[in-house]
């Protein structure tokens, strides 16, 4: 049923869920939310399953008219969300009524806001996912939202009692987005393609995110990483987080829309929780890379899941 109408498109807004799995063998990128933590939170707060499709809003937000009573939740970047022109809270569940207008102001921190909508966005499941891949034009609306698009939700939001304490994250549960980022990496699978000096440069240098950055990957500029055997490998798999280094020695971090294969050597792969963080980095921000072992990376993944469990528990408690 109809939930929101796009009055103004903003810079780039797409439907995204947790991604499209099982089709990389056919050369289909995973896609999905750039910041999966924020997407999951947006859904949990809006009363959905974690993996429902939500709107991913980039830098300059859209203007949306509410077509029926809904619960929405804004998570991720603070792009000054407003309801009927008044600033509204983030990381909490907000009721909106038919006729309300959602809009955004100046970007304050981070790059991507997620709008979770009660019921979950109703677009066809394409290869098991509602995520949009703009380059091949499939999933979601097959493109970024434009004026006149109507977003449907899968089911009418269940009746909710406004008297119940609204769901809200605690201050310490909300990530802080600065302009300097540390991305932790597991080295490899092609670290032997770089000289010891190249590896040292990669782990000690500071890189900035160039404007040639999007959902597919961020092109970085900074100290040149020295190759040992040249910048060509026999094409193999590229996975989100891969840091590939072409001939010019400037790293490219592949993210949610990563192509499934590529021919540049990969010096390391950014761990999943830090891919979420990088989703909130903008052109001009700075990145340093820090090496972690695989077992440490796996522990950090467990920590992340525990954090999400703890948040879910505290939300359940607060609504009684």
């Amino acid at each position, binding site marked *: 049923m109809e939930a929101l109408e796009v009055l103004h498109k903003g810079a780039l807004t797409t439907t995204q869920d947790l991604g499209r*799995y*099982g*089709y*990389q*063998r*056919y*050369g*289909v*990128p995973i896609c999905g939310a750039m910041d999966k933590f924020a997407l999951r939170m947006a859904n949990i707060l809006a009363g959905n399953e974690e993996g429902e499709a939500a709107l991913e809003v980039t830098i300059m937000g859209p203007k949306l008219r509410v077509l029926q009573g809904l619960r929405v939740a804004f998570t991720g970047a603070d792009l000054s969300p407003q309801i009927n022109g008044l600033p509204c809270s983030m990381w909490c569940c907000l009721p909106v009524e038919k006729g309300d207008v959602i809009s955004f102001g100046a970007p304050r921190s981070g790059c991507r806001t997620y709008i979770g909508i009660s019921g979950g966005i109703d677009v066809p499941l*394409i*290869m098991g996912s509602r995520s949009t*891949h703009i*380059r*091949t*034009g*499939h999933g979601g609306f097959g493109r970024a939202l434009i004026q006149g698009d109507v977003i449907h939700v899968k089911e009418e939001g269940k009746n909710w009692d406004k008297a119940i304490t609204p769901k809200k994250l605690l201050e310490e549960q909300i990530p802080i987005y600065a302009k300097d980022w540390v991305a932790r*990496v*597991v080295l*490899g*699978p092609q670290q032997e393609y770089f000289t010891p000096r190249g590896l040292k440069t990669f782990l000690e240098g500071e890189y900035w995110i160039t404007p040639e950055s999007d959902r597919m990957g961020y092109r970085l500029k900074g100290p040149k990483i020295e190759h040992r055997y040249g910048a*060509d490998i*026999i*094409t*193999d*798999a590229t*996975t989100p*987080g*891969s840091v590939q280094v072409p001939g010019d020695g400037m790293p490219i971090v592949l993210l949610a829309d990563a*192509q*499934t*294969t*590529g021919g540049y050597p*990969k010096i*390391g*792969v*950014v*761990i*999943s929780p830090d891919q979420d963080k990088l989703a909130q980095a903008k052109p001009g921000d700075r990145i340093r890379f820090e090496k972690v072992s*695989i077992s440490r*990376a*796996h522990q*950090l*993944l*467990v920590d992340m*899941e525990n954090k999400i469990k703890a948040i879910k528990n505290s939300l359940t408690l607060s609504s009684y």
Partner: protein
Amino acid sequence: MYRRPRYLPVGDKGLSVEFGNEVSEEINHQVRRMALALEKANLPGVIEFYPTFRSLFILYNPLELNLKNLIDELKKLEKHMVEIPPPQSRTFEIPVVYGGEYGIDLENIAKFLNLTPEEVIRIHCSQEYLVYMNGFMGGAAFIKMPDQLAPLPRKKTPALWMPAGSVTFAGGLGAVFKVLDGPTGWHVIGRSPLKQWFPEKNPPILILAGDKVRYRPISEREYQEIKKLVEEGRYEVKILEKEKEASGENLK
């Protein structure tokens, strides 16, 4: 081919099983045999996997499956791989208009290789190619070029836009044809009216890893005719032969 495959961790959720460091049918067959073995094994915690030229990439959920256990399981599968028959395959005929505005680099390719354009075309369309892998996006299908065409390097400056259908190669490798409009650093020898990408179908692509292709030169007029049929969804891609499965049954 390595004596034993290398197991290379790829970040916190990936594992690459590398069988060698060259493009050869033998290595690629091993890669696809392991994919088949893994398909049959149906290991809990394995999210998905896919073959590339010389390695198999596996995406796993470390919260469900320990990396060491995954590698142990794969090492067990290594021993059974020989028993698995090579993947079944079809040979597709790929119509191509060579040269002119459809293959803007044909003259330069010929000059670089010290051949005439006619010789380049003859070499290009006179053999069967194994599709080693699907990848990039939209299911691009990749092949190895014959020795006479292999010395051509990538373009120094990539072309910013080439239409889907462009038949390209460089550095010893080729794309059966380009799946999407967009940039390419490979040389364009011609253009095919066929389509590879059908997101509404399952599988969403026509030519799969393990299939074979053979090019057939066509005229510009035939290109237009086929193109129209393809766009209307009425063109039947010609399959030159289907390999029979070990059971003797034909593929669908």
